[in-house]
């Protein structure tokens, strides 16, 4: 077994898990799900930092894929989807997910310089990016059992978070603040 191939598969699965965590933390950030031990600032910062970690693992996943001569995938195929001869659809979906992720990350890094609506609109495609990544992993993965188990768990987490997102009241309808930061004021 080719070590690059092992690395590709392993980092692919890890990336998926990390992006799932990022997605759930994004929902947690916007809903204000927080506690004394996990205050809002920590959730927000974790959301951002884990997303950058995910990008690193994704980078290794992509790098090992391209460098691996066993499978003919070029650097161009990383950004332009459905051009490979090897598993055109499934690899292509990976490219689509990468493109979506890149736009989310870039707009977030440039958030202060772009119109707020643009940032928001592109950020919403993160859900699509995650879903496409899940399908990509199922289609392109050669270890069917592992990919299915992981995919099933990830879908479960995000589905639960999305349901909870719509079932819990909007943050502002019930303004409650975690204890350490609320202080009684003197007149």
């Amino acid at each position: 077994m080719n070590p690059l191939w092992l690395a590709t598969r392993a980092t692919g699965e890890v990336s998926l898990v990390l992006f799932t965590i990022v997605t759930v933390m994004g929902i947690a950030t916007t809903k204000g799900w927080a506690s004394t031990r996990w205050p809002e600032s920590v959730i927000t910062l974790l959301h951002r930092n884990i997303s950058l970690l995910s990008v690193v693992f994704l980078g290794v996943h992509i790098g090992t894929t391209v460098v691996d001569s066993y499978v003919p995938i070029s650097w161009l195929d990383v950004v332009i989807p459905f051009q490979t001869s090897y598993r055109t659809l499934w690899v292509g979906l990976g490219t689509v997910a990468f493109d979506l992720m890149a736009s989310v990350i870039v707009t977030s890094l440039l958030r202060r310089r772009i119109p707020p609506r643009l940032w928001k609109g592109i950020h919403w495609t993160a859900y699509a990016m995650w879903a496409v990544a899940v399908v990509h992993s199922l289609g392109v993965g050669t270890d069917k059992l592992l990919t299915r188990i992981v995919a099933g768990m990830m879908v479960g987490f995000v589905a639960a978070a999305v349901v909870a997102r719509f079932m819990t009241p909007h943050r502002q309808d019930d303004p409650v603040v975690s204890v350490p930061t609320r202080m009684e004021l003197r007149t």
Partner: protein
Amino acid sequence: MSGYLVTIDRIACDGFGTCAQLLPERIILDEWGYPIIDPTPVHGTERHHAKRAVNTCPRLALTLQRVHELEPAKR
């Protein structure tokens, strides 16, 4: 002496409270979770914390402004 003021866009603010968690020296929250900002400028090492607080706001409602550019500060 140059200082920086934490200023806020009240419409963008949604009362997340991350700012008060990261810069308690200048920001506390009212009973509804919205920030009350001390208009004293931050200097030196505090500026690093202020920058963090400003960048962590999920709505980017905060900015750091150099003091000499300002009109009378908002709370």
